[in-house]
Structure formats: structure tokens, C-alpha cells
């Protein structure tokens, strides 16, 4: 694409040549800059020595230690419970909220919408501390429940944003058509509105999932004793490694978490691709027709 644009321009041959080489180079550098740290972490997770100073040879011992320990499995369990529950709740609530914002007029709508997105702007530390204080004030013991509540709070805005974007591309006369054909409001919602919004709802859930699964800062303040999720466990391991100097387990856990959060959306994406029908395509075509 870029090469085509350059060729059409009036630049002289040598400059065009530089463009042809420098563009992929630039892209390569940026990619390297983003992924190099993660790549180093992944490589050193297989380092026998367990530190970053020298390479002692390939080894899986950190993975063995990590997987043998009790803490990883209980942390994984906590993380999965917190994330799946909160993503489910926030997807439902966020979709309903987006529907209300898009379809209805009500007093204070603008204000509500802006307040809704606030968690995206407020520093996570502040959000975490204030949630912690709230739970202490309300005397709710910190643990799985408080983590779920916190995660619902900060994933809802993400869901609302994604579903709203989808709603802008839906042909709402389809709702009228359904009612015209005899479907009442509930039936219309079930048979027409929700199926049409489904790609957006799924995308929102897929985006909210790593958002919740990876969160450390807010989670750190609202987690309870004995209920450590993966992100907090990583931090605990780092603290331990600073005393012993052995980063091996941290690297191994980091690698596993990265792969998990990369693979899950990929899986979801593949599932979406497998569906025979893509409404997005349809609307693009209709749009150009009218």
C-alpha cells in the first residue's frame, strides 16, 4: 500500500529507493521496541541460571517449580473466577447501558455518559484506593466479591464504548420491521436487536477479558488474604525474587500470562470468523446502495 503511494508520487528514484527500504525498517524497529522486553522475558524464562546477567543453558526448571507450587493454581482459579464473572456481568450491564444511551432520551443523559467513562481517565491507583476505602467503610470483607465489584466497575465503560460503536452501524428500521411483522418489544429484542448487536457484544467481552484478567493496580487494593489472583501473585514473586535474586519463576509466569491473554482473544476471533455470516459486510453494501 505504502509502496504504491510512493511510486505514484513525483519523488526521484533514489529517494523512492530510500522510502522503499526505510519504511519496512521503521515498522520493524517500532515492533521490536514494543515486543523486545516481552521477548527477553520469555527467553530468560528458559534460562537455567534464573537471573538476567548470564545465560546458563536451556532449562524448564522454573516452569516445573512454578507448576508444582500450590500458589499458581489457586491464583489461576481466583483470576478465572473474578474475570469470567465480572466480564459476564459488565457485558450484560454495559450492553443495556449502551442501548439506553443510544436509543432513549432521558434527563441528565450527557452527564451520565461522561461520568460513565470516568474510570478510563482516573489514575488506577486512585481508583484502587478509593474502592478499597469504600469497601472498608461499608464493612465488606475484601476478597473475591470485592474484586468482582471492582472489575465490573472498570470494565463497564469499555463494554459501553464498543457496543455503542456497533450500534452506530445497525439499521434500526429493522426493529420497526420486526414490530410491524407482529413481534412485541421483547420478541424484537430477542430475535432482531440482540442478534444484530452480537458481534459488538462479543468484541466487547473479548476486550474486557484481558482488561480484567491483567489488571494489577486496582486489584491489588481490593484483594483479600488468601485470595491472590495471578497479577498480584506475579508481584509477590517479584518481591521474593528481589531478596533471593532468582527471577526464573517470575519470567515463567509472565510468559504464561502473556500467552494466555494473547491466545484467548485469538480463539474468540477465530470463532467469530467461523460464523458463516458477517453483518458488518452486509451493512457496508447496503450503505453504498442508498
Amino acid at each position: 500500500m505504502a509502496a504504491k503511494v510512493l511510486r505514484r508520487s513525483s519523488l526521484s528514484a533514489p529517494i523512492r529507493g530510500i522510502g522503499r527500504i526505510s519504511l519496512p525498517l521503521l515498522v520493524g524497529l517500532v515492533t521490536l521496541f514494543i515486543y523486545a522486553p516481552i521477548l527477553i522475558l520469555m527467553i530468560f524464562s528458559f534460562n537455567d541460571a534464573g537471573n538476567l546477567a548470564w545465560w546458563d543453558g536451556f532449562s524448564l526448571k522454573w516452569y516445573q517449580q512454578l507448576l508444582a507450587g500450590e500458589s499458581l493454581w489457586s491464583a489461576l482459579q481466583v483470576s478465572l473466577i473474578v474475570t469470567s464473572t465480572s466480564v459476564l456481568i459488565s457485558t450484560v450491564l454495559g450492553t443495556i447501558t449502551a442501548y439506553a444511551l443510544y436509543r432513549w432520551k432521558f434527563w441528565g443523559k450527557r452527564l451520565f455518559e461522561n461520568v460513565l467513562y470516568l474510570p478510563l481517565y482516573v489514575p488506577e491507583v486512585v481508583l484502587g484506593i478509593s474502592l478499597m476505602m469504600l469497601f472498608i467503610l461499608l464493612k465488606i470483607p475484601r476478597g473475591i466479591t470485592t474484586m468482582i465489584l471492582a472489575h465490573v466497575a472498570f470494565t463497564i465503560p469499555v463494554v459501553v464504548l464498543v457496543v455503542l460503536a456497533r450500534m452506530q452501524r445497525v439499521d434500526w428500521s429493522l426493529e420497526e420491521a420486526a414490530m410491524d411483522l407482529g413481534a412485541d418489544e421483547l420478541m424484537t429484542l430477542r430475535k432482531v436487536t440482540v442478534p444484530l448487536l452480537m458481534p459488538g457484544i462479543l468484541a466487547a467481552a473479548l476486550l474486557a477479558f484481558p482488561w480484567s484478567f491483567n489488571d494489577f493496580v486496582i486489584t491489588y487494593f481490593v484483594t483479600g488474604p488468601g485470595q491472590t489472583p495471578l497479577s498480584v501473585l506475579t508481584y509477590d514473586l517479584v518481591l521474593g525474587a528481589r531478596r533471593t535474586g532468582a527471577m526464573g519463576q517470575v519470567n515463567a509466569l509472565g510468559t504464561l500470562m502473556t500467552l494466555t491473554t494473547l491466545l484467548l482473544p485469538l480463539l474468540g476471533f477465530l470463532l467469530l470468523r467461523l460464523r458463516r455470516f458477517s453483518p458488518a459486510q452486509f451493512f457496508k453494501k447496503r450503505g453504498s446502495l442508498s
Partner: protein
Amino acid sequence: MINKDQSLSVELISVTKRYGNVVAVDSINLTIASGEFFSFLGPSGCGKTTTLRMIAGLERPDVGKVRINGELVNDLPPYERNVSTVFQRLALFPHMTVAENIAFGLKIQRQSRNAIEAKTKKILDLVHLSGYESRYPEQLSGGQQQRVALARSLILEPEVLLLDEPLAALDRKLRKEMQIELRRIQQEVGITFIYVTHDQKEALSMSDRISVMHQGKIIQSGSPQEIYEHPKTPFVADFLGASNFLSGLLVKSGNGFGLQMADGLLIHIESRGLGASDLNTNKMITLRPEAIEISLQKMPLGAKNCFAGVVVNKVYLGDSTEFEVLLNQNERLKVYVDGHRKEAQLSIAADVFVHWDDAVCNLIRSD
């Protein structure tokens, strides 16, 4: 259902709809008979679609009553009215196949699978779409999508089918075909069709009766022929086809009436509906360009009006030629001449005669 044998199908009684300060529909009164092919014709923004949506139940009138088969339906939501709509943008469900789209209404009614299958098959035959059951709307052409939308509504056997400019997105040729198709289907199923369009040719060719709307009001209702040949207002005369407008003082002329124009021309008009009290008042007539004949010699007997003029403009239209003829240095008349006539070869600046019968002058009653 109750009043099936009564001839009235839809009644609008002083129906009004406002959006803020804008009056979209201004106290309309209308009765549409059962089995009629009825059209609302007017320019965009005239209130025709709003009227249709009020019959469908998609809008609520602010004032007035909407009755369907005698039943007051003002407060009924669309899904409790026995009417169905074919939308301008069709609104086919993109996540359903053709068969699923068509069966949607029947499934909502929880009809048996056998009944749904049989009816779907029958309706697909009616709209010539057999074999397309498992396609998705995006895989169909514009005309085919049109037929699906039609079938989806017709399968519910509504009392009234509402059509909101359903052919607007199609190209000219396909539109023509679908017009004939729609008319055929309407005659086959025999239900009331209420059709909204801004295309006068479409309305004239399909409808039993037409209401011309302008600025929220019904200006004139009648058969296509009535409306075309006897427009009641200059707006109707101009909106349906082209017209020449001539105004002057009504005078006695021979044993009939004439229109004395400011530039001295005297036009004979039919005396039908005119009396002595109309004399010496200002009147306007409309004159269709195709009703005027053009010739090189002053001539024929029978043509009550004949004037000398000069051709000042000529536009070739294929099947006909449009001339502009200047009469008396002042009055410009638009005249259509069939393409095969030798008069169609006349060139600009030619001296000609124009003539027309007094019967083709349409008198505008009042303004």
C-alpha cells in the same frame, strides 16, 4: 376481520401530526376502500410517509382518528394491527435467510412448522423467488430483495399492505417491471395496497385512486385520469406532468365563455360549470403541452383556439420534441409533438400556428 364485507378499509379523520413546530400532517380526512390500490403522491417532505407510518402504528397522530376496518387503532402498537409495511430501505433481517425472513411473522404467531413451510412455498411462488430459500439478503439483487420484503409482509395476509416508496432504489427498467409485478400481485391477493411515492408516473400507472399531498395537506384525491386531466390547483397540474398556465378575465364569447388575457388573446373555454356570476372575475386555466397541436398553416375546423406564434426553443426528447412557442410577443406555450410527426422537424424561429380544443382547457376553480 369483523367487517370484512364492508367496503371501507382505512379511515383517517382529521389526522394531524406535528414535530415540534412543524406540522407534518395537517388534519387529513380520507377513506380508502377495501381492495383498492391507493397512492399518496407528493414531493419529499409533504407528509405522505408520516401518514403511512400513522396507519402502520409507527407514529401516533397528535389529533384525529385512524380506523382500520372500523376499529379505532390510535393506541394499538404496530404488532397488534393487521397491517404490514414494505419499508423504503426494505429492512430485511441480514442475519436470516430468505426463508427465515419470510417466515418471521408466522414464527412469531407460533404457527406449526408444516403450515409455515406450506405458506412460505406458496408465497415464494407468488413473488417468483422459488429456489432462493437459503440465500441471505446480501446475496440477492435489488429486485429480489424487493420481492422478499413484499413476501415477508404478504404471507401474514394483512388487511392492508403499506408500501413506502419501495421501488425508489431500483433502476428505471427494473422499477417498471416491479410496477407491473406489484399490480399483478395486488390483483391476485386482492388486499388493500396503500402506496407512497413521489414518482407521478408510478402513481398514475398503478393506482386505482391517488391523493396528491403538499405541505401536510391532501390537495386532491381521485382516479389517475381525473387528477391528470382535471387538476384542481396549479400545484397538482405542475406536479403531475407539465402544464401551461394561462390566466385572464372571464368574458362572454359567442354562446360560450372565453378567457380575455392581458395581452389581448381570447381563449375559448368550455362553459361546463360556469355561470353568469363568474363573468368578469380572474380565472386560470391549465393546458397540457401534449394537448396542443402545432402546424404551418392556419387551419382546422373544430379547433376552437388557434393562434399564430413563433418557435423560440426546441428540446429533443426522443419519443417526442418539446417546443416553446411565443404568442403575441408575450405568452410562452410549451408544446409536445410526437417524434414521428413532420412538425417535429420544425426549427427555431419558424412561424407556426398552435391550436387546441376548448375541452382540453382545465379551469382552476379557485385559488
